[in-house]
């Protein structure tokens, strides 16, 4: 099986930082999990390293959330498989900057 093409939606500030418009697509080999998608995203766009999860601990930054298919995946295990719709390219994996600050 070849690499899977995973759609990823970024918040506006990270799209600016990565100099991209709209969704990005990253190639993931093997299991499609939050960890492998984030690894592939950071490999494709190194400028995003540290902006979504901590460089050292790899913990999600507190005001960043992960969604897919109407589900909040922010507290799900990073190595759990993502929904089939994401794996098949029907739905994007959403990285969202929390609305905070009033």
């Amino acid at each position, binding site marked *: 099986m070849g690499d899977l093409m995973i759609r990823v939606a970024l918040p506006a*500030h990270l799209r600016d930082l990565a100099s991209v418009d709209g969704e990005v697509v990253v190639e993931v080999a093997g299991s499609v999990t939050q960890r492998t998608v984030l690894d592939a995203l950071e490999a494709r766009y190194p400028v995003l390293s540290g*902006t979504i999860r901590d460089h050292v601990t790899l913990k999600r930054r507190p005001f960043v959330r992960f969604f897919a298919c109407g589900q909040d995946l922010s507290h799900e295990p990073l190595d759990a498989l993502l929904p089939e719709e994401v794996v098949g390219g029907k739905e994007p994996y959403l990285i969202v900057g*929390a609305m905070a600050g009033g």
Partner: protein
Amino acid sequence: MSRVRVLVGTRKGAFVLESDGKRQKWDVSGPHFGGWEVYHLKGSPADPNRLYASQSSGWFGQIIQRSNDGGKTWEAVGNTFAYDGVPGTHQWYDGTPHPWEFKRVWHLEPSLTDPDTVYAGVEDAALFRTTDGGQNWSEMPGLRGHGSGPHWQPGAGGLCLHTILLDPSNAKRMFIAISAAGAFRTDDGGTTWLPINRGLKSQGIPNEEAEVGHCVHRIAMHRSRPSVLFMQKHWDVMRSDNAGDSWTEVSGNLPTDFGFPIDVHAHEPETIYVVPIKSDSEHYPPDGRLRVYRSRTGGNEWEALTNGLPQSNCYVNVLRDAMSVDSLDKCGIYFGTSGGQVYGSADAGDTWSAIVRDLPPVVSVEAQTLDG
């Protein structure tokens, strides 16, 4: 003819102000990195078109940007600031141990001689260095390893290393300051550090003359006399004539000796500037009058500079990194406010005008004097 470039960091992006040597008409560009906090930008003395910027966000963390063309274009460089070894703990506000955690870069200080070497002062307080133009950053661990680190406690703005002064006459000597730990000096290029807080008195800490624990807001020096230091402490304006070995108070006739920035005239080593702020709980000028105070005697005797500054209903603050001087003749001086104004004076503070009035809250101001 010389030109001036003023780099302005704000809560919502960076701005670059440029003028010819007359400093009457200004071009304003920006915002760069719109929506992000830019705590500091600074140019390399060895290559003034090489700029570094600290871009950060509560959402997305720390980015370091570099420009090779004076701020026209930028590229993100390395943003990994990992503490050396096991970070350990410092004191939290309540006195309990708290793990060292990187939050942001407060201050970037490019080397005096090498455009690729830059020092970064960060929160939680530590000193980092790059020697490859910002791609890789390494902690200089001798500072936190000095031994007093576990006793450092954050100021209201966090445990931040906000001031880095490089001695132009001695490449091994450097001064730094941390809120609220105090000032430190290295004489061996950063391997070992000495707290230099003798003479500081800070009411409200258990031992008001402690070796560390003082809320130093800013230190300044004149490059021709690097052993003479001027300090704006939380309260008190101080000076040292022996590279920080001891300090004496020079607040003199200031209306209040609380404040954040302090700077030195480019050509007169005994002429210094502060912006008195009413108190640590109010953070605005006394009487609603924005006044820069100038001493031509290295402290103690101060005069209010008011010409062109608002003298009624003004309740802005001026933060510690938000004042800078150029080196033209006459010396230009610039400062930015929490209300988004950047004021400039082309005559050493005698008269002022607003270069811009409606930026986001200003965090830092750095002036560069450029040839041609």
